[in-house]
């Protein structure tokens, strides 16, 4: 596919808008608080759109469309699990994390465990997860842009890499947030317009689409896969997504950009409605592509079906609509990689540099400089890795991310919030063992080793998540006297405090209680 002027024009427009946002945001980003979390001043609806923007990557949206078009029901799992996972985020982790945290996941854990090992382990897992996810996004993005614009893969990856570096180094979290908001609005309108145009071909009757698929392609295109190992792998895959989102650093970081737990809650209402509305239309678009473009045509351009949505747009609305959908896909890629750079670079600059190396002694200007240097560093490393990983199956990397987040971060987050006896050894053991188990089992599994795999499942979550919990438990009970010693030494604060703080949001107790007394005295 060669580039036509409309497509190029819209791509340039997207770049201009995002750079405009960055220029505006950079004038407001004067200190670390603004750089990392936009001063905690993001409004609920803005954060809701931004969460939706961060979560719905090009790999997800284009991937689900293609998977439904080519394989049917199993393609829909990413959409259903990708929505239901937010119930775990909303009901269990979002508000307590907002109440305990400041900038990063490590901040939350070190609120309870004041130990360098915990901060380092949390920073390491944040960087690992974010960079693996980013390589997946960059490899997919490079391939998509190559096909859409006809430019070289290396050039495509470098263009995206340079843009994401500028967004974060100059505009920080404020620029990221507004790029996410613009992207979420564009994506929502693009998806709805596409679904509407598909439905128009079927007299606005969604059932007619399923009936057509059944008669033209066969009812097999609507059914699950039904193989034992394959089935077990799909169960594990769903399990990874359901638990994994609650451990994705770039999603969790969004809760620190709002002023309080109530706003974190209201932002999730917006996010869940938007993500749900986009994902629920995926079968219409996926099967629309299978019927109107044809499965052969889709897999002919890209065997993974990643371009099914733009191809469908070409059939539905010609070159202009194709250009629009392609530009929205481009905006989606840029927004998601921006969110990942800020998550990974914060773990580097805030956790490793400011806290572990400088022991919290660095001045605000030094920290801000470190944050910007880290953003450039993370981008350069990701670009180089993405160039080396050209041709790697993007799905492997995305699956890896959710499985690692579910195994390394989720057990530790849950036990820090809810288990009174939990201690530093348990937290560090849980993160490291969960990370090694999930990455190790993927390396030993069929996605990497192919036919002769030592581990049967491509997605290890069903095994590696229990290993993560077990490591937390064993680490804690094998050093059971530690919790009291830690409290005596001041490296762990009393669980009463965590329990009250995470559930109420009271953070400075003297001030809060005196505040109430003073207010009452005045009335």
């Amino acid at each position, binding site marked *: 596919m060669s580039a036509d002027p409309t497509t190029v024009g819209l791509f340039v427009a997207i770049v201009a808008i995002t750079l405009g946002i960055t220029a505006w945001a950079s004038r407001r980003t004067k200190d670390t608080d603004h750089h990392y979390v936009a001063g905690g001043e993001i409004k609920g609806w803005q954060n809701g759109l931004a969460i939706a923007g961060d979560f719905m990557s090009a790999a997800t949206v284009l991937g689900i469309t293609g998977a439904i078009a080519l394989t049917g*029901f199993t393609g*829909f*799992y990413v959409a*259903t*699990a990708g*929505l*239901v996972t*937010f*119930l775990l985020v*909303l*009901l*269990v982790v979002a*508000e307590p994390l907002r109440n305990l945290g400041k900038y990063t996941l490590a901040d939350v854990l070190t609120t309870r465990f004041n130990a360098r090992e915990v901060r380092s382990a949390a920073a390491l897992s944040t960087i690992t997860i974010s960079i693996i996810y980013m390589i997946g996004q960059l490899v997919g993005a490079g391939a998509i842009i190559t096909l859409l614009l006809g430019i070289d893969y290396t050039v495509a990856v470098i263009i995206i890499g340079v843009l994401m570096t500028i967004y974060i180094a100059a505009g920080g979290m404020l620029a990221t947030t507004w790029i996410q908001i613009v992207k979420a609005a564009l994506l929502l309108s693009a998806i709805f317009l596409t679904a509407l145009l598909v439905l128009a071909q079927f007299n606005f009757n969604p*059932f*007619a689409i*399923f*009936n057509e698929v*059944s*008669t033209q392609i066969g*009812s097999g295109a*609507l*059914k*699950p896969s*039904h193989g*034992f190992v*394959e*089935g*077990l792998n*799909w*169960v594990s*895959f*769903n*399990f990874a997504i*359901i638990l994994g989102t609650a451990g994705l650093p770039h999603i969790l970081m969004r809760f620190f950009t709002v002023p309080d737990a109530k706003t974190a*809650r209201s932002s*999730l*209402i917006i996010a*869940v*409605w938007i993500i*749900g509305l986009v*994902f*629920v239309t995926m*079968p219409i678009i996926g099967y629309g592509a299978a019927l109107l473009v044809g499965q052969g045509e889709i897999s002919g351009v890209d065997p993974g079906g990643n371009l099914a949505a733009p191809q469908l747009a070409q059939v539905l609305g010609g070159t202009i609509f194709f250009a629009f959908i392609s530009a929205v896909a481009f905006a989606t890629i840029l927004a998601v990689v921006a969110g990942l750079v800020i998550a990974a670079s914060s773990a580097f600059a805030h956790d490793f540099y400011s806290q572990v190396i400088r022991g919290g002694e660095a001045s605000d200007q030094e920290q801000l400089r470190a944050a910007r240097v880290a953003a450039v560093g993370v981008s350069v490393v990701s670009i180089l890795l993405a160039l080396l990983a050209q041709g790697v199956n993007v799905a492997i990397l995305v699956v890896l991310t959710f499985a690692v987040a579910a195994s390394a971060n989720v057990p530790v987050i849950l036990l820090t919030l809810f288990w009174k006896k939990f201690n530093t050894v348990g937290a560090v053991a849980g993160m490291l063992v969960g990370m090694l188990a999930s990455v190790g089992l993927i390396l030993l599994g069929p996605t990497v080793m192919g036919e002769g795999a030592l581990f049967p499942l491509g997605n290890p979550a069903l095994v590696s998540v229990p290993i993560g919990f077990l490591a937390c438990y064993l680490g804690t009970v094998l050093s059971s006297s530690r919790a009291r010693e830690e409290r005596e030494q001041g490296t762990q*604060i*009393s669980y*009463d*405090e965590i*329990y*009250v703080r995470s*559930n*109420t*949001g*009271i953070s400075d*107790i*003297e001030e*809060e*209680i005196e505040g*109430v*007394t003073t207010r*009452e005295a005045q009335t």
Partner: protein
Amino acid sequence: MERGEEWRRVSRTSAFGELMRAKKAFIIPAVIFFLVFYMAMPVLAEFTTVLDGQAIGALNWAYVYGFAQFLMTWILMHIYVSRAKKWDKLVDEAREEASEERNDA
């Protein structure tokens, strides 16, 4: 006064006790429900044929179950949010109770 004592004071207030009872009574069953309701879908879809049957025209039960996940998520979310609004008031009460107790002490 020792810092830990202040937190225990809040945790002993009747409003905080009520808050935690109400949260546990809702959140624990709700999480178990949605995890089971969700994970039952891939298990039934992959290991049995009960979801292969046609429900409405060619639309099979697997897709009906899939679409039901969206309804379930939206409904459970709004039930949670309406509960959580009541809990916010208990948090304010706990804060006031703790401050009164502190003044009495």
